[in-house]
């Protein structure tokens, strides 16, 4: 590295400085307190300090002003020229630029990245800023100590080493520079690789790297990731198992329920089977009974036929017997008739005419009698017909009466139906009225809600207006408050204390002064006392001046006399307090635009009042915001309520809400409840009316039906009656009377004929008494014979009739028997019997109620089973949601992945622990084997140190980490603390120069050799001049002659620097290059 240019602005005591460095030895000189060390610090800070570090505070100009700025241009290798500019303090900036020609720069890094890049370029063993273990202040390292020395600790290099470097880059750089003489290349490569692997996992302080990008972080992230996934899946599986458990329970319940259903179904089946068996058995029994009855009936017909046949046969016998009896009786009659003829023949000569006459008369009477009988029969027939017609008339009247009764019943039912319908209609109307009332009530409620919502909307508008007003007032207050700049009220207390102290201090100065000026020649005197200015006085007389605290007497062109009261200490105290007053109080007074603390207090009070008012306003605003927020839905509520009211009114259709208002008012305190009650009551009434109407309708229908039937009967009766009446055009009573009269006349005629006949008969009898007496025997015999014939005939007729009757019956029975199929009936009977035999006999009698109960139980069990099935379906659905076995599989995979990640994390940890152990062991071995930097660098320092000290010291012993063990004197190592300060400074300087030489980099020496004698300084001057051709050396000194010859100094004039020795030596006069504050 080589510095080109340094520019410093507002940096500690330096207002600005602009220095251009030469390539070799640069001697920057100037008097004490000029800022040389500050410039050295500026170089250090430009290279190492992050621009936002608080470490810069000690470089902020004491007198205030702008933030410190350092800009430095340097070159790391040919055509790689860098310019870093840092404006320090919080909020500052940093910029790193690169150039090939030193003129045209390109931005490389900005802000925080600037320091990372710089440290990378320097490779001084300082890690990038940030991260755990990073330095918060000015970072340091062994190379920083060596190459950027400080005047305050010249020999620090002897107490430092690479051991304390936070990063290995310094060692690597030195090792690279010293590689030719340092470690075995293989070992270096191994060490570098091991270090690299170790650094992947651990910080420079040995802590595990846990930041993003570290191996542990990656493994931990992976582990956390898979752990999270595992836990998520575990939860899923837990949920799944819970669902599965539920599913199992449900399945078990389904099984139980299924069993219950099966049992119930089985029981129901058994009961139904028993019931069916009982029914089937009953039916079969009935079938058997019917078939048996049929067979018995047919058999009975056969028996009847047989019996009838036997009867016919008996009757046939009886008829033959009666025929024989008749033949016998006829034979007897013939004999008796023969006897009678003989008797009559005997009688005939005596009375044939009389008998003829009697016969004629008797025949005449017989004819009359036949006519009377005929008339009587006809009359009786007339009477019967009239009575039949009268019966039909009566039947028609009865039918009419019945019809009228049914008609009356139908009319009554119709009236009742009409009444019931009317009642139903009334209830319907009332219900519709209730509907209307409810809708009206809804509309009313919606109107009320709309009114409330409207009120809310109005209130919202009012509140918003009020909010706007309050905001305006608050802004006004805030505006007023913004114009007042006052400190916290608590700050007034120390201000008052300071005021008091200041007053006391000033009081201590207010001792009263009396000064007498006695001129010896006339002089012009201007007097200032106690801060006031008096006019100039030209006088030659003594002049007395009286003041409280101070008097300035300006004797023009002669002297200025200042007299101040009080002791020096008191004055300092007062000055200090005044300074504090100016610093701590005066700005506040000026800001508050007041002149004293009372005014400031008033302003503070005013500000507090305003703050309080603003807070009150804020609270009010918050309250208003809250109220407005609570009314945010009012517009929507208004809209909804209006819509609702509109819908309700639309539902009312033609009903005017006003007409319902009175009725609604009459509903009492709880209209919805009253309407609900009324609706319930009306619903009950309506149901009742409907039931009544239904019953009455049924009755009406029945009555109508009965009326129609009676009407048909009446019509039939009327037709029959009219037909009957048509046969009696004179009317039934007339016909009946005539018939009864005819019957009576016929009866009288019959009686008269009977009497005449009886009279004639008695006459004939008397006449014929004798004949009869004669004939009586014959006739009696004949009569007996006739009677016998009649009896025989009657018997025969009876037999024949009976025989014919029985024959007809037999014939009918035979036909009936022939019509019947006994074999089929018997087969049917057999089949029925067989079926009956096959029909199972139920074990027990089952009641219908029992079957019904079983059905109910079965249905209930099925219902429960269906419910469980639905629950199972739902649970299945839930199981699909939570994953089931898939989730378990994924969990198994996740557990596997988690275990793998755990193993990998352990592996990584063990791996990197092994790398760390290897690195430690290599370092220890390295140290032990002394293949170290100290061995490489030590001789170079030792040779020069020997030369410098003229072999007073034999060697310098350095550790592997370049720590200085001591110097070898007489074969013994002596700690450097035991050599003189000057020699220690020289040894330190040699160390720095040697290191810079190996690294081919700039070394800054800030007055390092102040304790050296001239001889050694000459030696160093020669060494520096020689080394200036190899690397850049920057020396800050207040004694330039120690480093420069007189001719190399910057000549008087404006030149800032002067180059000599072929431009390898540059003298820089900081008195010209630097402007102090």
């Amino acid at each position: 590295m080589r510095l080109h240019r340094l520019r410093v602005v507002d940096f500690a005591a330096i207002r600005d400085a602009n220095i251009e460095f030469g390539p070799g030895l640069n001697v920057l000189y100037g008097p004490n307190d000029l800022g040389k060390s500050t410039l050295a610090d500026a170089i250090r800070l430009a290279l190492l300090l992050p621009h936002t570090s608080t470490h810069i505070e000690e470089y902020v100009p004491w007198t205030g002003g702008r933030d410190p700025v350092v800009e430095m241009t340097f070159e790391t290798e040919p055509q790689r020229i860098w310019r870093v500019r840092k404006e320090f303090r919080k909020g500052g900036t940093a910029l790193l630029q690169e150039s090939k020609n030193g003129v045209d720069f390109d931005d490389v890094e900005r802000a925080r990245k600037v320091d990372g890049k710089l440290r990378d370029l320097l490779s001084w063993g300082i890690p990038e800023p940030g991260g755990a273990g990073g330095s918060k202040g000015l970072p340091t390292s062994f190379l920083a100590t060596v190459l950027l020395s400080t005047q305050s600790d010249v020999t620090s290099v002897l107490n430092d080493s690479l051991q304390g470097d936070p990063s290995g880059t310094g060692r690597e750089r030195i090792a690279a520079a010293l590689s030719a003489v340092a470690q075995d290349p293989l070992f270096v490569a191994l060490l570098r690789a091991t270090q690299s692997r170790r650094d992947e996992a651990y910080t420079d302080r040995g802590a595990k790297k846990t930041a993003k990008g570290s191996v542990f972080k990656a493994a931990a992230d992976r582990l956390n990731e898979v752990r999270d996934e595992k836990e998520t899946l575990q939860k899923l599986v837990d949920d799944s198992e819970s669902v599965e458990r539920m599913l199992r329970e449900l399945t078990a319940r389904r099984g139980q329920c299924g069993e219950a259903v099966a049992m119930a179904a089985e029981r129901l089946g058994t009961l139904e089977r028993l019931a069916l068996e009982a029914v089937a058995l009953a039916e079969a029994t009935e079938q058997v009974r019917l078939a048996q009855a049929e067979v018995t009936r047919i058999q009975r017909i056969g028996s009847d036929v047989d019996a009838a046949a036997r009867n016919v046969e008996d009757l046939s016998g009886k008829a033959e017997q009666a025929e024989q009896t008749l033949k016998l009786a006829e034979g007897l009659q013939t004999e008796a008739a023969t006897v009678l003829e003989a008797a009559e023949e005997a009688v005939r000569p005596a009375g044939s005419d009389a008998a003829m006459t009697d016969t004629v008369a008797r025949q005449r009477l017989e004819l009359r009698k036949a006519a009377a009988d005929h008339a009587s029969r006809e009359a009786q027939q007339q009477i019967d017909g009239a009575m039949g017609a009268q019966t039909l008339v009566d039947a028609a009247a009865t039918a009419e009466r019945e019809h009228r009764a049914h008609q009356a019943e139908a009319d009554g039912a119709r009236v009742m139906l009409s009444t019931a319908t009317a009642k139903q209609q009334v209830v319907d109307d009332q219900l519709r009225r209730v509907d209307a009332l409810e809708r009206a009530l809804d509309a009313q409620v919606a109107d009320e809600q709309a009114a409330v919502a409207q009120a809310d909307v109005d209130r919202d508008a009012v509140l918003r207006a009020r909010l706007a007003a309050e905001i305006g007032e608050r802004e006004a207050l805030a505006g007023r408050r913004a114009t007042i700049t006052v400190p916290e009220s608590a700050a007034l207390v120390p201000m008052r204390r300071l005021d008091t102290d200041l007053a006391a201090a000033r009081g201590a100065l207010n001792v009263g002064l009396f000064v007498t000026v006695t001129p010896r020649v006339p002089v012009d005197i201007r007097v200032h006392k106690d801060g006031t200015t008096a006019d100039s006085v030209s006088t030659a007389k003594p002049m007395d001046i009286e003041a409280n605290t101070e008097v300035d007497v300006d004797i023009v062109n002669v002297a200025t006399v200042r007299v101040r009261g009080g002791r020096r200490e008191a004055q300092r105290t007062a000055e200090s307090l005044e300074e504090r007053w100016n610093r701590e109080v005066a700005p506040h007074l000026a800001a508050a635009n007041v002149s004293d603390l009372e005014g400031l207090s008033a302003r503070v009070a005013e500000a507090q009042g305003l703050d309080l008012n603003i807070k009150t306003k804020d609270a009010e605003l918050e309250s208003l915001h809250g109220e407005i927020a609570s009314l945010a839905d009012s517009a929507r509520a208004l809209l909804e309520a209006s819509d609702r009211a509109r819908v309700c009114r639309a539902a009312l259709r033609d009903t005017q809400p006003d007409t319902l208002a009175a009725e609604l008012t009459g509903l009492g305190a709880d209209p919805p409840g009253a309407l609900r009650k009324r609706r319930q009551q009306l619903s009950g009434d309506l149901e009742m009316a409907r039931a009544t109407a239904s019953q009455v309708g049924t009755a009406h229908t029945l009555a109508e039906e009965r009326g129609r039937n009676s009407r048909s009967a009446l019509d039939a009766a009327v037709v029959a009656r009219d037909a009957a009446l048509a046969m009696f055009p004179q009317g039934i009573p007339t016909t009946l009377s005539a018939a009864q009269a005819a019957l009576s006349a016929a009866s009288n005629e019959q009686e008269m004929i009977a009497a005449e006949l009886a009279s004639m008969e008695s006459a004939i009898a008397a006449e014929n008494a004798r004949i009869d007496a004669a004939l009586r025997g014959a006739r009696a015999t004949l009569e007996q014979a006739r009677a016998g014939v009649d009896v025989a005939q009657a018997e025969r007729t009876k037999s024949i009739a009976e025989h014919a009757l029985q024959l007809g019956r037999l014939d009918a029975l035979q036909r009936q028997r022939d019509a019947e199929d006994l074999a089929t009936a018997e087969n049917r009977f057999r089949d029925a019997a067989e079926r009956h035999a096959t029909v199972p006999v139920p074990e027990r009698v089952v009641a219908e109620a029992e079957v019904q109960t079983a059905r109910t139980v079965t249905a209930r069990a099925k219902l429960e089973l269906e419910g469980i099935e639905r629950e199972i379906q739902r649970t299945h659905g839930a199981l699909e949601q939570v994953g089931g076995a898939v989730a378990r599989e994924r969990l198994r995979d996740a557990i596997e992945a988690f275990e793998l990640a755990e193993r990998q994390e352990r592996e990584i940890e063990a791996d990197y622990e092994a790398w760390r152990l290897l690195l430690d062991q290599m370092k220890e071995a390295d140290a032990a084997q002394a293949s170290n930097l100290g061995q490489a660098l030590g001789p170079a320092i030792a040779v020069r140190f020997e030369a410098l000290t003229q072999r007073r010291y034999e060697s310098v012993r350095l550790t592997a980490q370049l720590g200085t063990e001591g110097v070898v004197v007489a074969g013994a190592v002596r700690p450097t603390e035991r050599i003189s300060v000057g020699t220690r400074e020289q040894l330190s300087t040699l160390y720095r120069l040697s290191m810079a030489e190996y690294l081919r980099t700039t070394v800054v020496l800030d007055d390092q050799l102040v304790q050296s004698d001239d001889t050694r300084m000459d030696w160093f001057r020669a060494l520096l001049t020689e080394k200036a051709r190899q690397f850049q050396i920057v020396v800050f000194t207040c004694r330039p002659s120690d480093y420069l010859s007189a001719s190399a100094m910057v000549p008087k004039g404006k030149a800032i620097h002067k180059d000599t020795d072929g431009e390898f030596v540059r003298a820089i006069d900081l008195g010209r290059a630097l402007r102090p504050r």
Partner: protein
Amino acid sequence: MALPARELGDTRVRIGCVHGCTFDMDGYQTNFPICRDAGIQRGLDYLAIGDTHSFRDVTETSSVPTVYPGAPEPTNFDEPGAGCVALVALFRHGLRPRVEAESVAFWRWIDRRCRDINELRTVLTTQDLDRHVVRLHLDMTVSVAEESEVERIVRDLQGTDATHGRAGALLVDRTNLRLQPGSGGVFPDDLPPVVKDTIARLDRLIADASDEAEKARATRALAHLYKLLQNQEALAGRAL
């Protein structure tokens, strides 16, 4: 199922495809249950079911084959019958179709447990290794030199950023891969003294270790060193 039953006289060939489970595997999830005789009930001639990955004919004795053709590629090590498609020859309705499993998988999933370095070496000889997903269980104790070879073989199988692995995919279980404690004379004699000293120090740590973890750490450090040396020698064109 919404599929209507086959009508009488309908002789068309009917094929069903459905996702679900026929409950023929114990413990398998019961989502989307399917009757074993669903094919018969629905008048199908062939019913293909998608759910599990292995080929299975669950109704070999039925007139209607109900088949899980499985996934055309296995997706895990425990899917022995996966990687097939079902070749189905359908003749006419009522005649049982002929169903054959045809392997079509590109990948083979193998689980290998290696108990010594020779078994591990034989893995490299597996035919068509690039079509295999290999899960390697290293169940062996090796020296640091052998461990280096183990790593090399694993690297060969797995591939690097620059080279393809010989195996299609590789999972390595090193849970039971143990290192023999100590350098065991595997390091060359011509190492720089400082390296020899490092090895000696690690050997001493192993010998003096009070617990196995410390011993294992030191052994692993030796293995790291051995691999570093191998790399260095490789860079130098020499064999370690």
